[in-house]
């Protein structure tokens, strides 16, 4: 086992009712790197990351087979609450918790774990907002509603919320797809700086984004993993014809 292996996916398949969304996926996600998941709509890339933190199984009729091994332990043999406490998630649509201030949005993860030390929470809120490159913009209005921020700010708030609980893995499901180009580039810069501390898996329909920030890129098609490797190799020297067709824009 290579020392930088963080998550190993073995024979992972997933279903929605009778529809098989993932077909026997095998791949290794490396520690403190950015792995980009690309592919056309409906290829199973969102389902893939939702299988990693066990959100997929909450949908009605959903089923998962195979193993997702986090630091040597299969997450499907662990308590899902523990699994999710070790992984943060950021969603496609910015979703700060309604009727909660900016401060509360970042602090809630700690509070839900029973942490009450106000000084410690203050410190974590500040550090998380700094890491999410939002602190300077919100330091004077921490007690205003999170939902009053702009879309790009809301998404950075969601990233701050996700890292406040100090996860090891950060899963992002098309986090910039609803944002303008400036907000998108802020998020990308942020992710590159965060990979020093976290293992990042980002789903994106934007190939340029994958090429810009991904250390590794995985190409999914119809629920199958078609190609996976270093981003430079996948983009410059694809081994599979379908990968080449997709990245040169011939379909998808």
């Amino acid at each position, binding site marked *: 086992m290579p020392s930088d292996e963080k998550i190993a996916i073995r024979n992972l398949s997933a279903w929605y009712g009778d529809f098989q969304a993932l077909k026997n996926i095998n791949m290794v996600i490396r520690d403190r790197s950015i792995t980009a998941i690309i592919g056309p709509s409906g290829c199973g890339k969102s389902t893939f990351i939702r299988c990693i*933190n066990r*959100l997929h199984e*909450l949908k009605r009729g959903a089923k998962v087979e195979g193993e997702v091994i986090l630091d040597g332990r299969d997450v499907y043999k662990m308590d899902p609450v523990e699994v*999710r406490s070790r*992984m943060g998630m950021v969603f496609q649509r910015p*979703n700060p*918790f309604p*009727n909660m201030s900016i401060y509360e949005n970042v602090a809630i*993860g700690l509070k839900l774990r029973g942490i009450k030390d106000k000084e410690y929470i203050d410190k974590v809120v500040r550090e998380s907002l700094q890491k999410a490159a939002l602190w300077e913009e919100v330091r004077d209005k921490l007690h205003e509603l999170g939902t009053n921020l702009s879309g790009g700010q809301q998404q950075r708030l969601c990233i701050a919320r996700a890292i406040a*609980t100090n996860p090891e893995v950060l899963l992002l499901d098309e986090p910039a797809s609803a944002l303008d180009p400036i907000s998108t580039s802020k998020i990308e810069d942020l992710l590159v700086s965060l990979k020093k501390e976290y293992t990042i898996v980002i789903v994106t329909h934007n190939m340029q984004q994958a090429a810009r920030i991904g250390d590794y890129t995985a190409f999914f098609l119809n629920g199958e993993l078609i190609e996976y490797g270093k981003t430079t190799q996948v983009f410059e020297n694809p081994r599979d014809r379908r990968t080449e067709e997709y990245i040169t824009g011939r379909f998808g």
Partner: protein
Amino acid sequence: MEMAKTKLIKDKIFTIYCFISLSFAILPLIHIVGTTLVRGIKAVSLEFFISLPKPPGEVGGGIANAIEGSIILAALTMSFSIPVGILTAIYLSEYQDNWFRNLVRLLSDTFAGTPSIVAGVFAYSLIVRKFGFSAIAGAFALSILAIPTIVRSSEEALKLVPIDVREAGLSLGAEKWKVITKIVIRAARPGIITGILLALARIMGETAPLLFTAFGNPEFVRSPFEPVSALPLVIYVYATSPYPDWHQKAWGAALILMLMVLAINLAVKYKLRR
């Protein structure tokens, strides 16, 4: 040109129709409010608020017992209906679909349309026949009316909370019940509070179910196990009495009740706007 003119005239006629209909709807309301205001205000004095009623036929006294009774009944009803209503709504909106859930929803909807006197008869046969008239029995009857309203509006409010808010909560590594109680309820709070206030406004004005549960009481009460008065009961009893002074007091009680309900409705409006 002719066409345009005809269209314009049709538009005018339609507007006039709407306005006439509006008058039919609103004029009786203005009349009721106006009469209650004019006649009720004559009854209102400090004594009216703080003293107990005088024996029948004597002039003077107040309706402090009814104001106290209405507050006691509202407090008892709400302290029971709010937790039951919200927890039921959580079950309906947050847990897996099954036949039991659909049954609960059907029952709740049916109860929402039940005439209030039926709730009174039910409380009478279940509680009053064994334990006698009491504030508890009155609150029980009122709860039957309040709970479906709270369930319905809370369930709607919970359903409006996007699914990914729940997923974001779970992905923070929190248990489902914590996500519901700390995040989802909070997101749905304005809608839930609106439902509670609407239920409160409804039960404040209910008369029929109280006639044979709370019954009425000319004194202050010392425990919820005693019969208790209420504003609508006072209005009913005083308005049907032969004494002119009591008629005036009924108008006064009606005015106070109307202002209380108005205050609750304004609170709802304020809550909805925020």
